[in-house]
C-alpha cells in the first residue's frame, strides 16, 4: 500500500536506479540477445534450437557440467565460509582479528597467477604432493588436483569469501536473545544452530549462494586453466567467440544467464516464504557468555589451520616471486632465491603507473557501486513497487553473464555515440573501465546490503521519521550506520575484485588506464613467471593494506553497534 508522497519518494529513488540499470545493464545485454537471434542474416530462434538439438550434445553437456559444478561450488564454499565466519565472530581468542582478516585473503589472489599458484602447490609436480612423496618415500605423488576436483578446489577457495563476509556481518545482526531462547527451550548447540541461527542467516546465505552460483557459472580462469578438455558453458562461450561464432557465443551467454536467473528466482522465492526481521521488543543485545572452553579451543585450532591453508597460495606466489626466472623449470623444488624479479620490475620507471591506475579505477567504480548499491538494495528490501522482480533480475545480470560477455556487450553498446553516454564514444577512453567495473560489481553490493537490510526492523526507520527526520536524513543517520558492516563487506569485496579484475579489463583497457592485472598477464605471456608473481605480490600487498585499514575501521564500527 503505497500512495502519494511515499509513492513519490519511491519513484524518485527508483528513477535513477532504473535509468542506470537500463542504460548500462539492460541496453548492452539486449544487444547480446539480439545477436543470439541472428542466424544466417535472419532473425530466428534457430541458434537456440541448435543449442539443444546439436548432434554431439557438447552444449548440453557443458550446460549440465556448469550447473552441477556451480551447485557443488556453492556447497563447498558454504561449508568453508559459514563455519569460519562463526569461529571468527563468535569466539574470542588471541589473534582473532588477524585471522579474521587473513580469511579474506583468497579474494586478493590475482586470478590467473592464483590458479597457477594452485598448480604449483597441488598439481602433479606441485610442492605439496611432492613434499609428501619425498617425506614418506612414496612411489607416486599421493594426490594432485586437476579436472573437476581442481575446479572445485579453486572455486571453493576463492568463493567461500562471499559466504564468509556476508555471514559475518549478518551474524552480528542476530539478536542474541533468540539463541538464548532456543537454548532455554532445551535445544542443543547443534539444534540451536540449525533451527535458529542458520535460518536467521538465510538472507545472508541466499545472497552468498547467489553470488557464488553465478560466478561459478560464469567462471573462466579456473576451468580454463584446470579443466583442459572438460566442457563448461563459460568456456564454450569463449571458444565460440574465438572461433568467430558470435551468434553462438551470444546464444550460449543468454542460456547461461537464464539458468543463473532461474536460480535467482528460486532463491528469492525460498527466502520470501519467511520473515527475518528481528522484531523483539527493545534491544536484546546482551552478549551471551555461554562458552565451552573445549569447543572453543578446537574451533580455534580449526580456524588457525584453516587460515594457514588459505594462505598457502599466497606464500607460493611469494616464493615464485623470489625465484629468478629460469631457475625453477625442471627442478622439483626451487634452489635460488633473490630479489632479481623485484629489481627487474622496479627498474621500469613506469612500474607504479598500473598500480595507480588500478587503485584509481577501483575507487571510482566502488564509490559508484556503494551509492548505487545501497540505494537499490534499500528499494528492493524496504519499498514496495511494481516490477520489483524485474529490477532484481536486472541487478543480477552483470553477475549472471560471464565477464567477457559483459565486456563484449559494453564494446557493442558504447563504441558508437549513444544517449546513455551523452553522445560520446566510450570505448577507447578512460571511463569505459570504471564503468565496466561498476557494472560488474553492482550485484555484489546490492546482495550483501540486502542481507543486512532484510534483518532490520522497520520500526527503527519509522521512529526516526516520526521524530521529524526527513527520509534522507533517516537514511544517513539511522539506516546506514546500522547496516554499515554489511555494506562495507560488500564494498570491500567489490573494491578488491576491481583491483584484480581481468576479463573485462583485457577487452577494454587503454593506454591511459592499463590496470595491474593486465600487467601481470603480459608478464605471464612472456613466460616471466617470477616477475608476474612479483607483480602479484605487489597487488596482494596493496589490497591487504586496504583491507587491513578498512577492517580496523570496520571492526570499530561493528563493536559500537553490537556489544
Amino acid at each position, binding site marked *: 500500500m503505497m500512495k502519494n508522497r511515499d509513492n513519490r519518494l519511491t519513484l524518485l529513488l527508483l528513477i535513477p536506479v532504473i535509468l542506470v540499470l537500463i542504460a548500462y545493464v539492460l541496453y548492452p545485454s539486449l544487444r547480446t540477445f539480439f545477436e543470439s537471434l541472428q542466424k544466417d542474416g535472419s532473425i530466428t530462434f534457430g541458434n537456440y534450437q541448435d543449442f539443444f538439438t546439436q548432434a*554431439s550434445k*557438447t552444449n548440453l*553437456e557443458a550446460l549440465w557440467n556448469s550447473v552441477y559444478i556451480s551447485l557443488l561450488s556453492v556447497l563447498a564454499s558454504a561449508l568453508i565460509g559459514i563455519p569460519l565466519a562463526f569461529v571468527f565472530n563468535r569466539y574470542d581468542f588471541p589473534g582473532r582479528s588477524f585471522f579474521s582478516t587473513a580469511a579474506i585473503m583468497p579474494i586478493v589472489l590475482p586470478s590467473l597467477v592464483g590458479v*597457477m599458484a594452485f*598448480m*604449483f602447490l597441488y*598439481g*602433479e*609436480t606441485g610442492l605439496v604432493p611432492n613434499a609428501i612423496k619425498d617425506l614418506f618415500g612414496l612411489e607416486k605423488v599421493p*594426490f*594432485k588436483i*586437476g*579436472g*573437476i*576436483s581442481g575446479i572445485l578446489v579453486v572455486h571453493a577457495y576463492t568463493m567461500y569469501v562471499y559466504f564468509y563476509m556476508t555471514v559475518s556481518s549478518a551474524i552480528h545482526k542476530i539478536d542474541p536473545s533468540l539463541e538464548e531462547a532456543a537454548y532455554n527451550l532445551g535445544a542443543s548447540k547443534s539444534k540451536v544452530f540449525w533451527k535458529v541461527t542458520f535460518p536467521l542467516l538465510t538472507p545472508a546465505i541466499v545472497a552468498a549462494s547467489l553470488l557464488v552460483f553465478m560466478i561459478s557459472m560464469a567462471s573462466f580462469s579456473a576451468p*580454463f*586453466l*584446470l*579443466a*583442459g*578438455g*572438460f*566442457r563448461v558453458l563459460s568456456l564454450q562461450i*569463449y*571458444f565460440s567467440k*574465438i*572461433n*568467430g*561464432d558470435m551468434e553462438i557465443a551470444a546464444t550460449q551467454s543468454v542460456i547461461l544467464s537464464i539458468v543463473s536467473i532461474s536460480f535467482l528466482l528460486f532463491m528469492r522465492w525460498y527466502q520470501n516464504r519467511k520473515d527475518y526481521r528481528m522484531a523483539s521488543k527493545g534491544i536484546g543485545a546482551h552478549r551471551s557468555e555461554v562458552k565451552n572452553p573445549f569447543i572453543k579451543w578446537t574451533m580455534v585450532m580449526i580456524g588457525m589451520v584453516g587460515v594457514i591453508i588459505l594462505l598457502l597460495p599466497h606464500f607460493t606466489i611469494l616464493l615464485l616471486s623470489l625465484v629468478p*626466472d*629460469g*631457475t625453477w*623449470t*625442471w*627442478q*622439483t623444488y626451487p634452489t635460488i632465491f633473490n630479489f632479481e624479479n623485484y629489481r627487474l620490475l622496479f627498474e621500469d620507471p613506469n612500474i607504479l603507473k598500473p598500480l595507480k591506475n588500478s587503485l584509481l579505477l577501483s575507487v571510482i567504480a566502488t564509490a559508484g557501486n556503494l551509492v548505487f548499491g545501497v540505494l537499490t538494495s534499500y528499494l528492493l528490501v524496504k519499498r514496495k513497487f511494481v516490477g520489483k522482480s524485474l529490477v532484481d533480475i536486472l541487478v543480477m545480470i552483470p553477475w549472471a553473464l560471464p565477464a567477457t560477455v559483459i565486456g*563484449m556487450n559494453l*564494446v*557493442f553498446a558504447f*563504441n*558508437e555515440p549513444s544517449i546513455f553516454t551523452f553522445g560520446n*564514444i566510450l*570505448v*577507447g577512453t578512460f571511463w569505459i573501465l570504471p564503468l565496466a567495473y561498476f557494472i560488474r560489481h553492482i550485484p555484489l553490493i546490492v546482495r550483501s546490503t540486502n542481507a543486512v537490510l532484510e534483518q532490520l526492523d522497520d520500526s527503527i526507520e519509522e521512529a526516526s521519521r516520526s521524530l521529524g527526520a526527513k527520509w534522507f536524513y533517516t537514511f544517513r543517520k539511522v539506516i546506514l550506520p546500522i547496516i554499515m558492516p554489511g555494506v562495507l563487506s560488500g564494498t570491500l569485496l567489490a573494491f578488491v575484485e576491481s583491483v584484480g579484475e581481468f576479463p573485462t579489463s*583485457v*577487452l577494454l*583497457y*587503454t*593506454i591511459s588506464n*592499463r590496470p595491474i592485472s*593486465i600487467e601481470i598477464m*603480459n*608478464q*605471464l*605471456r*612472456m*613466460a616471466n*613467471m617470477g616477475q608476474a608473481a612479483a607483480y602479484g605480490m605487489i597487488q596482494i600487498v596493496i589490497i591487504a593494506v586496504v583491507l587491513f585499514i578498512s577492517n580496523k575501521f570496520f571492526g570499530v564500527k561493528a563493536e559500537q553497534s553490537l556489544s
Partner: protein
Amino acid sequence: NSESSSSKPEEKEGKLEEKIVIYSPHGKDILSKFEQQFEQKYNIDVEWLDMGSQEVLDRVRSEKNNPQADVWWGAPSTSFDQAKDEGLLKPYEPKYAAALDEGFHDPDWHWSGTSQTPEVIMYNSKKVTKEEAPKDWDELLDPKWKDKIIIRYPLASGTMRTIFSAMIYRDFKNSNEPAKGYEWLEKLDANTKEYSANPEMMYSKVAKGEGVLSVWAMPDVVMLKENKNYPFEFIIPESGTPVLTEGIAVVKDAPHPKAAEAFYEFVNTPEAAKILAEEFYRIPTRNDVKDLPKWITDTEIKSMDIDWQVFQKESDKWMQHWDENIKSGDKEIKE
C-alpha cells in the same frame, strides 16, 4: 614537439604526428627496445599495448568506429587475413617490398611479414635424448609416448590451430576430405596426457616432466632454452612443417597514419631484423638480411606447402569437429 619533428632533416614525406600507438603481442622486451630506438630517431612518442594476438584482433574490431591504434605489429598472417576481410586494415606497400618473397605479404599489401615461425616438435632434454625423440609428426603417434604428450589447448591458440589444421591439410589437399586427418588427430589425442590452458602451464609441465613432448613454435622454444634455462630441445619434422608468417599492418583510419608508416618501415629494416633475430630469436622474412645468427643458418626448415586461403576457410570447421568429436573429455577428469 612539432618543431622538433619537422626539423628532422631525413623526413621527406612531410610532417609526422607527434605520437603513435602500437598494438602488439611481442612483449615488453621487444616493444621497449623498439620504442626507445624509434623515439630516439624520430622524436615521436611511442605508446604500445602489449596483448595476445587474438585480443588485438578483437580490439581493433571493437574500436572500428573509433580507432585508437595505428599499427598492429605481430600476428600470424591468418589473423591479418581475417582482419582484412572485415575491413579493419589499410593497405600499405613498404619500401622494402622487393625484399619480401611472394608468400610473405598480402597480395594487396594489407599486411606484410616481419618474421617466420616454423612449428616444431619440442621435448624435455633431461628426460629424452636426441636419439629417442620423434623425428617426424607421425612418430608422435607411437604408443610409447602414451601419456607423455602435453599439448596446449588448441582452440585458443593460433599456433596449435595451425599445427592441427596442417595435419588435416596434409591429406585434405589431395582428397578434399578431412577424415584421414581426423583419424590422425584421434590417435594423437590417445597419446595426449593433458591439454594445457595456456603456454606457461605447458612449459612448466614439460619442463618438470609431467609430460615430455609437445609441439610448439620454434622461436619460443629457442627463447625458453636460451634465456630462461628451460631444458628444451626441438626437432623440425622431416616431412615438413607449417611455417607461419608473422606480420605487421596499418590500422584503417589510424589517428596517426604518417607515424604509423614510419614505424612500419622502421621495425623491418635489416638492422631491426637482425636485432630481432639475435636477441629475440625471430627468423626474418626479408631475404637481404646479412650475418644472421648461427642457429638460423644451421637449421634447415622444410616448409610445408600450404594454401592459406583454404586453411582459413576450413580450419574453424575442423577445429570445431575436433573439439566436439575427437577430444576426449574424460581424459583430464581421471585423477
